[in-house]
C-alpha cells in the first residue's frame, strides 16, 4: 500500500498547527511553529510553487522562529499551571 506524500504532509501540518496552539510552554510553541513552517514549505514545493516554498523556508522557518524565540526570551513566567 502506498501512502500519498501530500496526505502525510497534511497530517503533519495539522498536528503541528494544533500542537503549537495547545502546548503551554511558549518556547515549545515557537519551535513547533517552526516545524509547521518547514512542513508547509515542503507542501508548497510538492504543489509546484517553488518560489513560495523558498520564501516560506527562509522567512518563516528561518527568521520568524528566531524572532519568536528572541521575543520569548524577554518574557517571564507568571502563571503556575
Amino acid at each position, binding site marked *: 500500500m502506498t501512502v500519498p506524500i501530500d496526505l502525510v504532509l497534511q497530517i503533519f501540518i495539522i498536528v503541528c498547527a494544533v500542537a503549537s496552539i495547545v502546548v503551554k510552554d511558549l518556547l515549545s510553541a515557537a519551535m513547533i511553529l517552526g516545524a509547521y513552517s518547514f512542513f508547509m514549505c515542503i507542501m508548497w514545493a510538492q504543489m509546484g510553487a517553488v518560489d513560495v516554498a523558498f520564501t516560506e523556508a*527562509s522567512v518563516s522557518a528561518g527568521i520568524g522562529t528566531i524572532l519568536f524565540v528572541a*521575543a520569548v*526570551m524577554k518574557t517571564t513566567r507568571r502563571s503556575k499551571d
Partner: protein
Amino acid sequence: MIYRGEDIIIRTISRMLIPFIQLYGLYVIMHGHYSPGGGFQGGVILGASLILLLLAYGYQDAKSRVPEKLLTVFSGVGVFIYAGTGFLCLVLLGNFLDYAMLAKILHTDAAHARSLGILSVEIGVGMAVMAVMVSIFLDISTGGVLPGEEEEKQKTAEEA
C-alpha cells in the same frame, strides 16, 4: 540571548558555515530573475547569516562586524538603489521602473536593459532587507537597549 556563549562547538561550526550561507545568499540574489529566489529571499538569507554570527559570538564580539550605524546606512542605500533605478527610468522619459529606457545609457538593447534593471532593483532590495532583518532582531532580543549602552543612557539620564 545576545550575550557570548562558551560553547566552542557552536562557535567553530558557525564560523565555518557563515561564509557558505552568505555565498548562497548572493547566489540567490544574482539569479533571482532566472530562477526561484530574488532580492527578498537572498536578503533574508544574508541577514540570517549575520544573525547566526550575533547568536554564536554575542553582540560585544560581533559588533565590529555588524555595527548598528552600518545597518542604518545599508537599509537607506538599499532603498535609494531601488527608488533611484525607478526615478532614473522616469528621467529617461519612461514610466517609473520602466527598465527598457535604461538602454539609452547602458548602450545595449531593450532586453538586456530590462535584465540589468531588475538585477539592480534586486540588489537594492537585498541590501535593505538584510539590514532591516538584523536590526529587527537586535531590537527584539535586546529590548531596544544594546549591551554596553546601558551605562551611557544612565549617564545621560543622570545629567539631565
